[in-house]
């Protein structure tokens, strides 16, 4: 009998203990962040996590939100949609977060957004960019970054005004982001009257791109446009150099082509490569340069548009929670839709346009690797360096 009593007591303590611990932890406001911290997209996750941490430190130092400290619970989605789903379910049911942020790869973000909508959990996406994510009519999903189809608008301007190409080759990873960017760039090229002579998807993680690059060489296009994550991007450029492919310009469609790791891995083959981007530290947004300097000082490495998106998202989250009447789903959603603020990433306001809901409008820019540094070269009035063009590739590569 005694034993049984003791056991019951233990069980009771255990249950109470479990109930007590969240109650104790309630003096922080919990927001879940989903990012790829391991796996092939880990580099992107890392730069975003560091930016979230940087912003969080500043927000809490400035008094937090409504007198409470803000807490980001960062979970690893490993770059796989099914893992993304399960970590979000954990964040919602176990950690009881009041809203979600993050979202790197399009495939994962799409899966996560679906779960959030089902659970009526407000989700602020900062990178996952496939167009269809905000075209579903999901009212709890908000997106800070522009959709993938708008990544190349600035590149298109530059093509039209400076390079004036006749033929274009598009190489893309056959993932959600890759295919969706390639498709819209293809349409834009056709509209502008450039001939797309080859549009080829590839499986990420290939060793040898030479077979397809040989065909590119044979076609001798004016522009080679590539949509790739970082390791494939570096291999593509290294092997293009090996095959002496010399178009008028190599252009990357964002993602892998702007990371410092691209330059480290591709070496001289990364020099003078153009890429679409969504942010650069020289942009005249308040705090843009400060953020860049703070990041470099804290982590001793460069940052780029992915980091800026995360940093801005953290401030948007803090702003939304400050304005929300309560931390109920409905109120947070309402506060999100009323957002109208300036961030390092530019103005943020969620509106409905082009079939998309709750989509922020943001501009795109063009950057170029010049002397191992990522420099903004387009649009001209904002550019810090002039666009290096034309490029004698063979001479630059030392042939």
């Amino acid at each position, binding site marked *: 009998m005694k034993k049984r009593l003791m056991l019951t007591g233990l069980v009771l303590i255990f249950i109470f203990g479990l109930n007590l611990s969240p109650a104790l932890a309630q003096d922080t406001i919990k927001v879940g962040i989903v990012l790829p911290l391991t796996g092939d997209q880990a580099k992107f996750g890392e730069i975003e996590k560091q930016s979230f941490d940087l912003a969080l430190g500043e927000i809490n130092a400035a008094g937090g939100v409504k007198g409470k400290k803000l807490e980001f619970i960062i979970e690893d989605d490993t770059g796989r949609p099914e893992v993304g789903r399960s970590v979000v379910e954990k964040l919602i049911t176990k950690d009881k977060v009041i809203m979600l942020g993050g979202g790197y790869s399009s495939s994962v973000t799409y899966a996560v957004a679906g779960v959030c909508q089902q659970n009526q959990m407000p989700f602020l996406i900062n990178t996952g960019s496939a167009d269809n994510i905000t075209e579903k009519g999901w009212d709890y999903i908000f997106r800070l970054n522009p959709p993938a189809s708008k990544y190349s608008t600035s590149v298109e301007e530059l093509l039209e005004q400076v390079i004036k190409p006749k033929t274009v080759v598009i190489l893309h990873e*056959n993932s959600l982001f890759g295919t969706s960017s390639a498709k819209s760039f293809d349409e834009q090229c056709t509209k502008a009257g450039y001939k797309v002579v080859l549009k080829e998807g590839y*499986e990420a*993680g*290939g*060793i040898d791109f*030479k077979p*397809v690059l040989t065909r590119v060489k044979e076609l001798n296009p004016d522009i080679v446009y590539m949509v790739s994550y970082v390791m494939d991007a570096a*291999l593509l450029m290294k*092997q293009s150099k090996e*095959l002496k492919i010399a178009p008028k310009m190599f252009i990357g469609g964002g993602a892998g082509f702007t990371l410092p790791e691209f330059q480290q891995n591709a070496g001289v083959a990364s020099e003078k490569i153009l890429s679409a981007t969504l942010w650069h530290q020289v942009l005249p947004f308040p705090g843009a340069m400060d953020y860049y300097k703070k990041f470099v000082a804290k982590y001793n490495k460069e940052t780029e548009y992915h980091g800026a998106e995360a940093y801005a998202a953290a401030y948007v989250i803090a702003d939304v929670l400050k304005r929300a009447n309560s931390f109920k789903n409905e109120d947070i959603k309402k506060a999100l839709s009323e957002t109208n603020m300036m961030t390092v990433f530019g103005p943020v306001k969620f509106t409905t346009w082009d079939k998309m809901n709750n989509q922020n409008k943001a501009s795109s820019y063009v950057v170029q690797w010049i002397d191992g540094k990522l420099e903004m070269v387009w649009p001209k009035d904002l550019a810090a360096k002039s666009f290096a063009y034309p490029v004698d590739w063979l001479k630059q590569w030392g042939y």
Partner: protein
Amino acid sequence: MTVFLQTLVAGVLIGGIYSLIGIGMSLIMGVMGIINLAHGQLMMVAMYITLVLFNFLHLDPYFSLLIAMPCLFLLGVFLQRFLLNPLMKIESILPENQVLMTVGIGMVLTEIARFIFSSDYKSVKTSYSSSAFFIGNISFNVPMCIAFFFALALTVLLFWFLLKTDTGRSIRATAQDKDAATLMGVNTGRITVITFGLGSSLVAAAGCLLLPIFYLFPDIGGPFTLKAFVITILGGLGSTVGAIVGGVVLGIAESLGATYIGMGYKEMVGFVIFVLVLIFLPGGLKRLTKV
């Protein structure tokens, strides 16, 4: 024409490395009658050894062959001696208990690598990593050519070992008929241990040769296990000559597929061949060569 030749060259060069990966698996398959499903993961371990040597001692990846191969030989010996051989004595519903064990070993190796090195992509940058020379219009990647010739040399060495040495003969005898070999006084238990070590060190060599060209992360093993498996089936189970031919055929088929069908279908080409071989040539290429 240039496109075709360049594709062929790329295919043959990568095929050399595939062969080296395939031979190791084929050797193990021949002697023990099991598929080693941790094969690619063993290669991953060798690549990490090479990476560590490169980062901390600045050893050239090719020089690391001399260290990574013995290391993996010992690892292979250890795995066979203490994890796989004991399973042979146990009666179970599944006769291929050892195969299941290799799957487990592969997972453990991957997770250990993830624990130590994290999931980041790593690569070594050598002065020759992306250098190439040209014959006519065709480019030859220098590290790929070096890898190809190392693969060739190692294969010749392996054949000399199998044909001329005592241990080599014992390995072949065990592969042909284990019971008969035992009756003739061959210590088959010891032979299986040596074979697994040998197979592991061959795949280690492939890893060292691949590192300057490719990059490295803990999950790299899986796809290469699959490749080795396709090569082994293609070549005929347990045939070393078959594995060499199988490797080169797979390399060329993938390259041609990538050029003429589409880059995205590269992997598919390999598996279509795999299925076709199983249906129309169940013994693999071994049946054609009679070796």
